[in-house]
């Protein structure tokens, strides 16, 4: 099993979610994070112009079976894309065990 962590623009979340649902990835968790990266955002506050690279982003954590990995990554790459600096990143890592608390089911079966 693989864990996919995607850090995307908040404004793209709706599209990404729909795209995931279309390929039947209906299980994930997300939260808001601040991202530091290439993108800069200009602000003015009380006469002080400043630009910050600390930008609000949404972090998605999705555990999928190995078979689902590729299509999930592809779908995120596509639906989170705008082409402008700041579109975000996707990271993949291994998961060795998975459990569904409700049933005690283990591993791949718990992800369905």
């Amino acid at each position, binding site marked *: 099993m693989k864990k996919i962590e995607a850090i995307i623009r908040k404004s793209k979340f709706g599209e990404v979610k729909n795209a995931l649902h279309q390929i039947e990835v209906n299980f994930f968790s997300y939260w808001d994070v601040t991202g530091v990266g290439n993108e800069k955002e200009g602000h003015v506050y009380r006469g*002080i*112009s400043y630009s910050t690279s600390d930008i609000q982003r949404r972090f998605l954590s999705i555990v999928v079976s190995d078979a689902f990995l590729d299509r999930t990554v592809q779908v995120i790459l596509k639906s989170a894309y705008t082409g402008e600096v700041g579109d975000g990143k996707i990271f993949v890592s291994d998961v060795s065990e998975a459990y569904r608390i409700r049933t005690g089911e283990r591993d791949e079966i718990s992800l369905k």
Partner: protein
Amino acid sequence: MDTNTALDILWILIAGILVFFMQAGFTLVETGFTRSKNTVNIIMKNIMDFVIGTLGFWLIGYTIMYGDDISNIIGNPSLFFDKADEMHSLFFQTVFCATSATIVSGAIAERTKFSTYLIFSLMMTVLIYPISGHWVWQGDGWLTDLGFIDFAGSSVVHMVGGCAAIIAAKLVGPRIGKYINGKSAAIPGHNLLYGALGVFILWLGWFGFNGGSQLAFSGDSANAVAGIIITTNIAAAAGGLAALVVTWLQFGKPDISMTLNGILGGLVGITAGTAAVSPEGALAIGLICGVVVVYAIEFIDKKLKIDDPVGAISVHGVCGGLGTILVGVFAKEGGLIYGGGFHLLGVQTIGVAAIAAWALSISFVVLYILKKTIGLRVSAKEEIDGLDEHEHGISAYNQ
């Protein structure tokens, strides 16, 4: 008591109640324009301000200000003021005094020791504010004799607060992280809705602040108060409009925090001349203060490098002084543009200078002593973690 006198007292009490509510407005503005980790501390300072103001002004402040005149300088102090037929006046003056004290709180927010602040607040209440107040409002003060006009306190209340604020902010120093390599950094407030609600409440209270300063309502005072409310309202609107336009042109975006400060600047500016100028004069004063407040904030922040998180020095100090002087220009009677010549303008300038000199120097003395004794500032660790955690042991926001 005859009906007219009762009517007068009714208005003074209602106006005083409105001014009381300004404490909530100050609390909201200061809270909103600072970071969430210091919210409890800011609330406590604003509440204790008013607590101390209530008790201290009744205890002795009121008579220092309004007691029988001694050499045109100070009132004859007596303890526990208790004249049954002046209680409405005590109330109205108490809420004014508390306003002056509370101004300082914003300028030194997020880094000042709570205990020190309480002591300074007491000094504002029983010493700094009542003495210059006596000069202008007691009736026998030397500025009254000169013909100085500060109807509702642009100088007496706001500039005094602003002067104490600049001394305090300078002595306590900037917040950690405010100046990085000599460049001013933006530290955005944590909840601009609180800031806006606070400004609405202050605007509301200002109708009492200025209107109540007529100290009467019966007879001709009724129309006078109505006129005051109109000039107050127009100046506030003009201040907001001016700040909006200036920031829009200069930074490309209509800036909310400056617009809010522009409104307050207009209100502070009109306070001295609210009864003396026409609606057009109020428009002019409001526009001028709205523009000036934007540049004053930049100047104090970037040039003087004094860290004033909420802009109290510019709003209350600068616009307070400026508004008082502008009475010499726009007063329907005696104002420069109405052909009154430079006399009134001169008097206004002298008055502003004298009051500022008093407030700046006495604040310096008091704060310097406090700095050298118990200290003005919390430790760096307390400041970084937030005052709420260390000074009060609780954060304002939980689940």
